[in-house]
C-alpha cells in the first residue's frame, strides 16, 4: 500500500503512540483488503461498546487510549450492555458490570463521539449524499449503508472503524469503489415473506455469498424486513452488500433460497418451543417500527415480559409522537442505549428461552448469552403472546 509521507511519519510513531496504533491498524486492514492507498472518510460508526463483548482488556484499552485520542470526524457508537436509566430495576446486574460499562461509556465520550449507543445510526441521522465514504463497524449498519443507503464502507471491524475515527481515513478497498464484483444471485423463492424470513434469507446469503450478492424475487420489503435482512447477513458471513434485482443476469451463479434452505436456517437457530420472555429490537427498532408496533398492540396486553430495544433518540421522538404510551400500556418495556445482543439485562438464572423475531438476536442469544431461542415473526408473537 502507498502511504503519503505524512502517513508514513505517523506509522513510524513521529506523531505519538495513538496515531501510530491507528495507522498500524489501517495498514494491516489495507493489506488485508488489497487497498492501494488510504482515503478520507466523513463518518465513523464504532462497535465495541458493550462490556460483555470487549471485557476487561477492552475497557482498559479504551481508558488508556482516551487519555490522548480524539475523533477527527463525526463518530457514533454502538449500544452498551445496559440502559443506565433502568438499571435499578435489574437487581441481578453486579456493580462491577455497571462500573466497567460506565468507564467504557466515558472513554468514548472523552474521545469526542456522539453518545448515540445505537446499532442503527441510519435510523437516527439523515444519511449524507450518495457515494459518500464512511466507516461503519456494526455489520448490519455497514450492510444497510452500502445496500440501501447509497453510501460506501468496508464491513469495518471495531478497531478499523476506531482508527478511521481518529485519523479520518480508511483503506481504499474494493467495497469503496464502483463496479463491485457480484458473482452470485440468490433467488428468493418464498411467497409473502415475513421479517423473520428476510432475516433467514440474510443469514443464508451471508453464508453462501462473498463480498456482494444480488437478490432476486423480492418486491419492496418494508423497513423491518430490510433491517432483518441486514442483521441476518451481518451475523453469518463476510458479505457487506446486496442489491435487489428485477431481472437476472446471465453470468452470475444462481442459488435458490426456498423452503428447504429456510428450514435449515430455522433448525439451526430455533432451539425452543416457547420463550419465557420476549425481546424485540435487534437491530434496535426505528420510529416506523415503533409506530407499527403501537398499532398492532391496540387493545392488547403482553402475557409475559417483553423487552423492546430502540435508540434513545428514537425513543424520544416516539414519545413525542405518542407511540410509546400504547406499547407501555400493553406491558412492553422500552429500553435504550443497549440491545438484545449480549445484554446482561436478560437474567440467565431465570430465563431458559427467549422468543424473538430476530435472527441476529437468536445467534448471539444462543452462542453468547447462552439461552435457547424460540423464533417467530412479530405478527405471530403478538397473536400468541398477547390477549
Amino acid at each position, binding site marked *: 500500500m502507498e502511504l503519503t509521507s505524512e502517513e508514513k511519519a505517523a506509522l513510524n510513531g513521529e506523531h505519538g503512540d495513538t496515531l501510530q*496504533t491507528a495507522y*498500524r*491498524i489501517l*495498514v*494491516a*486492514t489495507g*493489506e*488485508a*483488503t488489497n487497498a492501494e492507498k488510504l482515503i478520507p472518510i466523513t463518518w465513523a460508526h464504532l*462497535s*465495541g461498546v*458493550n462490556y460483555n*463483548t*470487549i*471485557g*476487561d*482488556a*477492552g475497557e*482498559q*484499552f479504551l481508558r488508556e487510549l482516551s487519555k490522548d485520542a480524539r475523533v477527527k470526524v463525526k463518530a457514533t457508537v*454502538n449500544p452498551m450492555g445496559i440502559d443506565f436509566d433502568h438499571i435499578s430495576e435489574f437487581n441481578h446486574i453486579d456493580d462491577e458490570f455497571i462500573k466497567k460499562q460506565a468507564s467504557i461509556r466515558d472513554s468514548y465520550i472523552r474521545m469526542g463521539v456522539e453518545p448515540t449507543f445505537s446499532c442503527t445510526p441510519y435510523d437516527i441521522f439523515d444519511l449524507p449524499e450518495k457515494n459518500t465514504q464512511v466507516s461503519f*463497524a*456494526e*455489520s448490519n449498519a*455497514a450492510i444497510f449503508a452500502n445496500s440501501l443507503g447509497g453510501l460506501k464502507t*468496508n*464491513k*469495518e*471491524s*471495531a*478497531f*478499523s*472503524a476506531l*482508527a478511521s475515527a481518529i485519523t479520518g481515513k480508511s483503506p481504499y478497498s474494493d467495497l469503496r469503489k464502483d463496479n463491485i464484483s457480484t458473482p452470485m444471485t440468490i433467488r428468493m423463492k418464498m411467497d409473502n415473506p415475513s421479517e423473520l424470513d428476510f432475516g433467514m434469507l440474510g443469514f443464508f446469503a*451471508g453464508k453462501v455469498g462473498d463480498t456482494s450478492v444480488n437478490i432476486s424475487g423480492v418486491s419492496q420489503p418494508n423497513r423491518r424486513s430490510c433491517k432483518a435482512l441486514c442483521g441476518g447477513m*451481518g*451475523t*453469518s*458471513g*463476510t458479505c457487506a452488500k446486496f442489491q435487489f434485482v428485477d431481472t437476472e443476469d446471465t453470468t452470475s451463479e444462481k442459488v435458490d433460497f426456498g423452503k428447504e434452505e429456510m428450514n435449515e436456517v430455522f433448525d*439451526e437457530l430455533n432451539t425452543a418451543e416457547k420463550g419465557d420472555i420476549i425481546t424485540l429490537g435487534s437491530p434496535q427498532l426505528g420510529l416506523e417500527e415503533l409506530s407499527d408496533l403501537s398499532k398492532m398492540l391496540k387493545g392488547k396486553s403482553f402475557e409475559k415480559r417483553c423487552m423492546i430495544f430502540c435508540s434513545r433518540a428514537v425513543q424520544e421522538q416516539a414519545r413525542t409522537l405518542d407511540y410509546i404510551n400504547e406499547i407501555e400500556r400493553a406491558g412492553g418495556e422500552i429500553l435504550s442505549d443497549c440491545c438484545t445482543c449480549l445484554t446482561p439485562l436478560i437474567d440467565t438464572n431465570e430465563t431458559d428461552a427467549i422468543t424473538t423475531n430476530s435472527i441476529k438476536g437468536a*445467534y*448471539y442469544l444462543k*452462542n*453468547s448469552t447462552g439461552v435457547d431461542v424460540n423464533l417467530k415473526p412479530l405478527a405471530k408473537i403478538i397473536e400468541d403472546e398477547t390477549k
Partner: protein
Amino acid sequence: MSKIIVQGMAQGTVLKTTSPINFLGAVDKKTGTIRDEKYDIFKKSIKDTILVFPHGIGSSVGAYTIYSLKSNNSAPVAMICTKADLTVASGCALANIPMIVVSNEEFNSIQDGNKITVDTKSENIFN
C-alpha cells in the same frame, strides 16, 4: 504465494479448521476455548496454537475478542488464513499476533497437529 498482514515470528502446533470463525460468538475470550458446537474444533482451545482457518466472519467486535485473548494469555501465537478480513487483520495488528494469508493449495498442505514456524522475515514464511 503468501501475503503478510501482520509481521512477526512464532512457533507452535497447528490447530486447523475448515470453518470460518465468528470470534465474538464462538470463542471464549478468557480461555480461548471454542464454545460453538457447530465447529469441528468445538471444545478445543486456540491458546498458543498456530490457528489455521479460512477467514473470520460475523461481528466487527470480534477484533476485541482477539485483543482480549492476547491480554488473557489465551491467544494463538500466529494465524494463517486463505482470505484476510478486517476483523481478524485489525485484531491481530493491535494484539501483535503474526498473521499471513496463503493460497488454497498452501492451506490444504498444512496438517493439523504439526509443529510449524511462521516467520514473516524468512523467505519461506511458514515451514
